[in-house]
């Protein structure tokens, strides 16, 4: 008990706090103090036939289940049902046995009454010694009966029928005591504690309140639903609270006047709950002022319990049934029985309910292209996340949990929040949990920066300028965006591809040599020139000469004619050798690369700066770097790894006799630049930076043509175009489309650009004609200008009055000085 009062104490604090914070506290402590039976259990029995209605006796020890094929009474034990009576003998099956409603007499526990679909009301006496328990049949209605209800104190049975009658049957006299002319009735119920009053739910959507002492007319009537009212239920404890459910899929709760005698018949709809199907039954949960169970006619196979203050989401759902539930009876607040078309009779325990609110996510996010983050958050989580931070702090500081030790008032509040939140059953907080707010964030450290993306997209120069200039420019642009790596890579591209095969800067080269593909042996003399020219440009060109030589070595090994060329080549190279490592060149490297890489180049220098032109091959191979360094390079900067690999490969390929003819170009690092760049682009694309990959690819243009799988490239292009469209950068997008080498991409801005024309006089589509302004059928040009008498191929302006018109410029000129139609039809055209 001590712990319970503690809980309550906490609850009061919590509630007070909540009063301040949320201003909305329903008497929560009620839930804490109520004793929840722990033994209750969910169990079921298969009755082997559809159940249409049920009734339980007052003690809740027996339940009668009735359906088309079944009429049985079961005993309710702690964890199972036992069959007690079978009221339907196998050989007899009159309509009297097919009940649409059944009730247990509140005064005699052996008496049952059922309403049959033939309009009869049948009484059953379980005490009868013989097998046949049917006691008395009373044909009350001309059409099907729909609802019956025993009076709680008097021996009166109220019955409503589809024939538009309500009748009260005196069970002692066995005769109809009163008849009430109504409309077709779906449900009737006595008003608890108002012994003369009952309510009837009608076909036309109204609920009628009757006083049986005045059978002539109802006391009052109100329209409750749009369409028939199928079910009504008075609250067992709050006497003037009526719930109704109808075909309009709504549950409505009405506050009726305290007494109908006063003459003031005001009724207020206090709550409305939207369900997903027409209602079959609504039943209040006992001892709860605001909870109601509902079952529906179709679709929804479960029993839903709603909290009136949160009408949008069921408080609890019971899903044991596999077909529509037709009947429910509450035992108490924690248990109820249900029967359905799936032949199952189920005793439900409230603690086994499925809580949809727990399955419903209280938090949602969305990220937009600008990396703005929209967060929809339940307010409770806001508390719990502060609780989270408090919990984190508390973990590191144990004194935190003791308010006096930590001292501050703020801490005290925090502690209260924590205890307040952890103690009560979260499920009972159902109502408060429902408010969400929307927050917008702009997290700063994103991998993807929209402004940078837009800046780069707008400012990258992708065509129309010399290659180096474009690289330099784009590098600066990337630099502005603090994309250090991209900046450096642009510079690298500039350095690597700057001159040798650039047709623009080396116009003396034969045109076919502007192709970056390795030069073939058919033109060896030119190759010498190439190398010479490259050397003259004073920039690092090792890459290209390497590539060439590499190819040549592999391609023509053993070709005798070749050595001469190599000789002369190497001579040229040797002559020019000094150029390669002029000071400014080294500076160029230092500018472009990191310290780590400088180390690399220093190494290269150490061994690559020989004074003689011939290098023993083993030196080359041995000059590799420690594995760690290699591993590092291969992780981040693919060039160098590739470079190593290639060089090793080359040195393997070389036959010893050829050492002497290896040109000095091998002295400097060997770069398979094209494949290195390809792998660079790949790595950008893999990292999600498709902008850089595509931009570089376009700038490089022919230099790496057809080195990337077309499908992959198309994929990149489409992805980049998609991003551009997202940012509404249509111009950039169009530039990319026009500059792209892929046919599929180029076609993009030519799609849907055809204008289809129709002949104005015969409506014949001119689609199939060679020209869009001549109709073969009419044998004439369709849209002639009224002034120049030539076909109008652009905008045709016409008068709405006389339909004459022509070229916009001609019409404009004409109407400057005229008001009448140029054709002479006499119409006063209006030019606006």
């Amino acid at each position, binding site marked *: 008990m001590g712990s319970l009062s503690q809980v309550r104490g906490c609850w009061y604090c919590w509630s007070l706090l909540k009063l301040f914070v949320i201003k909305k506290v329903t008497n929560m402590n009620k839930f804490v103090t109520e004793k929840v039976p722990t033994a209750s259990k969910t169990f079921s029995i298969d009755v082997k036939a559809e159940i249409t209605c049920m009734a339980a006796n007052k003690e809740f020890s027996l339940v009668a289940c009735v359906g088309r094929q079944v009429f049985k009474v079961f005993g309710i034990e702690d964890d199972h049902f036992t069959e007690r009576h079978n009221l339907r003998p196998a050989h007899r099956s009159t309509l009297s046995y097919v009940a649409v409603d059944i009730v247990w007499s509140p005064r005699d526990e052996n008496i049952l009454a059922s309403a049959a679909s033939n309009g009869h009301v049948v009484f059953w006496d379980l005490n009868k010694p013989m097998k046949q328990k049917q006691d008395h049949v009373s044909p009350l209605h001309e059409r099907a009966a729909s609802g019956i209800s025993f009076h709680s104190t008097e021996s009166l049975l109220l019955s409503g029928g589809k024939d538009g009658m309500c009748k009260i049957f005196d069970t002692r006299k066995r005769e109809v005591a009163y008849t009430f002319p109504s409309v077709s009735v779906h449900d009737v119920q006595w008003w608890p504690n108002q012994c003369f009053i009952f309510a009837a739910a009608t076909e036309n959507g109204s609920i009628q309140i009757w006083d049986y002492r005045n059978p002539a007319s109802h006391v009052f009537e109100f329209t409750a639903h749009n369409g028939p009212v199928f079910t009504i239920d008075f609250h067992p404890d709050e006497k003037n609270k009526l719930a109704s459910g109808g075909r309009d899929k709504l549950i409505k709760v009405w506050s009726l006047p305290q007494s109908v005698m006063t003459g003031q018949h005001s009724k207020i709809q206090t709550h409305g709950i*939207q369900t997903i199907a027409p209602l079959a039954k609504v039943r209040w949960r006992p001892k709860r002022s605001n909870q109601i169970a509902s079952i529906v006619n179709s679709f929804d196979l479960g029993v839903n319990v709603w909290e009136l203050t949160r009408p949008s989401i069921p408080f609890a759902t019971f899903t044991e049934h596999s077909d529509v539930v037709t009947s429910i009876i509450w035992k108490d607040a924690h248990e109820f029985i249900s029967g359905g078309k799936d032949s199952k009779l189920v005793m439900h325990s409230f603690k086994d309910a499925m809580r*949809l609110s727990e399955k*419903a996510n209280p938090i949602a996010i969305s990220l937009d292209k600008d990396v703005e983050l929209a967060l929809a958050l339940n307010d409770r989580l806001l508390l*719990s996340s502060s609780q989270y931070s408090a919990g984190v702090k508390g973990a590191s500081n144990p004194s935190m949990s003791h308010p006096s030790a930590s001292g501050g008032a703020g801490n005290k509040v925090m502690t209260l929040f924590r205890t307040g939140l952890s103690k009560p059953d979260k499920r009972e907080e159902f109502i408060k949990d429902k408010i969400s707010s929307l927050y917008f964030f702009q997290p700063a450290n994103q991998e993807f920066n929209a402004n940078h993306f837009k800046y780069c997209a707008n400012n990258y120069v992708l065509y129309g300028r010399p290659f180096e200039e474009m690289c330099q420019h784009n590098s600066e642009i990337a630099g502005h965006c603090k994309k250090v790596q991209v900046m450096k890579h642009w510079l690298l591209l500039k350095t690597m591809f700057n001159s040798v095969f650039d047709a623009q800067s080396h116009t003396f080269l034969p045109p076919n040599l502007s192709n970056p593909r390795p030069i073939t042996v058919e033109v060896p003399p030119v190759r010498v020139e190439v190398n010479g020219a490259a050397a003259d440009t004073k920039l690092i060109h090792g890459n290209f000469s390497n590539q060439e030589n590499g190819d040549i070595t592999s391609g023509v090994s053993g070709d005798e004619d070749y050595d001469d060329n190599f000789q002369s080549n190497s001579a040229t190279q040797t002559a020019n050798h000094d150029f390669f490592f002029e000071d400014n060149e080294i500076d160029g490297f230092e500018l472009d690369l990191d310290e780590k890489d400088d180390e690399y180049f220093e190494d290269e220098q150490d061994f690559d700066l020989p004074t003689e032109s011939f290098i023993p091959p083993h030196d080359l191979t041995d000059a590799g770097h420690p594995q760690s360094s290699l591993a590092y390079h291969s992780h981040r900067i693919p060039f160098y790894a590739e470079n190593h690999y290639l060089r090793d490969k080359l040195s393997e390929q070389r036959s010893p006799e050829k050492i002497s003819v290896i040109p000095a170009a091998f002295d400097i690092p060997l770069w398979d630049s094209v494949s290195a760049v390809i792998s660079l682009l790949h790595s950008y694309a893999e990292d999600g930076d498709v902008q850089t990959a595509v931009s570089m690819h376009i700038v490089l243009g022919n230099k790496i043509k057809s080195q990337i799988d077309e499908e992959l490239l198309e994929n990149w292009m489409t992805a980049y175009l998609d991003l551009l469209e997202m940012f509404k950068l249509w111009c950039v997008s169009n530039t990319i489309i026009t500059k792209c080498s892929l046919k599929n991409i180029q076609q993009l801005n030519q799609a849907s650009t055809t204008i289809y024309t129709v002949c104005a006089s015969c409506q014949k589509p001119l689609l199939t004609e060679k020209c869009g302004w001549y109709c073969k059928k009419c044998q004439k040009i369709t849209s002639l200008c009224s002034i120049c008498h030539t076909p109008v191929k652009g905008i045709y302006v016409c008068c709405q009055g006389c339909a004459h018109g022509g070229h916009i410029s001609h019409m404009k000129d004409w109407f400057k000085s005229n008001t009448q139609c140029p054709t002479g039809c006499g119409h006063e055209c209006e030019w606006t």
Partner: protein
Amino acid sequence: MALSSSVKGTLTNHKDLIHDVSYNYYGDRLATCSSDQHVKVWEKDSNEDWVCKNTWKAHQASIWRVVWAHPEFGNVLATCSFDRTAIVWEELVSVSASGEIHNQFVSKHTFVDSRTSVSDVKFAPKNLGMLLATCSNDGIVRIYEAPDVMNLTQWNILIEIGVKMSCSSISWCSAMRLQPIIAVGCDDPGSSPSGKVILYEFSDGMRKCTKIDSIPSITEPVQDLCFAPNIGRSVNLLAIATKDVAIVQLKSQGKSQSTTRFDQKIVGQFTDHKQTVWRLCWNITGTTLASTGDDGCVRLWKSNYLGTWSCCGVLKGDGSLIKSQTSGEPVGLLSAPSASKYATS
């Protein structure tokens, strides 16, 4: 790597929990859906504040998700609800006589095939046309097609896949080089030996879906899953929300017997939320993942150059910062300070 954030709180006027928020393609509109059975569409006003422009009662029960279609198809929304339906909405703009522009979202089609709550709805990548995938708690994934994109009142059901477990979420993979992949996440509480995430390959031409794989390591009920935008990558990333956040890398291994085989690898699994993770969202380049859970926090995840995923920031619901990653780089192959320059471009 400080994570600064500016917070704008907005009252939504939703009468119950908001279950989904969704930006449109351009990010200039926002749709929210709630248990109060209403959908709201928000736009930014001149002060850059979000204001509600449209609100309407869309369903008869809680609305779980709202998504926008690609703008190529118009301003089209799809919603799904506990009331067993999914609905496609299209914006109609009318100009009144006084010149006022009035817009309204009209229900174009209601999908009523499901017998239980429809838990997710997703439009297919636009290159497949107007396709819509839904999944429901009865364990059936349905794919619908609007044969005429100009007439969204006509939809045909293309495929029904029985997953046999209650489905919670669905995601299309947008990689262009592969056949489209659909990942389905199940929130079934029971155990399942093959895992709770199942991958289907959708062959547009054959009008069928073939189960190609499942992710056996995901055994907890899945609340949400989301493919990262592919944008030209050779691998696909799938983020999965259970009690944890998991990121699975799927690499195409080429075709075998007409279906693509995938090499799957869990590249990240994080228990930081400590409670149920509800929603996931990728940024447009698929480089940052945001996750939210019952702890009320947003966590941002991203990978470093080695493909190692880690948390790069935690935001509390009201926008205050709980934690941001301060240690620059995780210990890896790079220990030299100069090297980290490359890693943090």
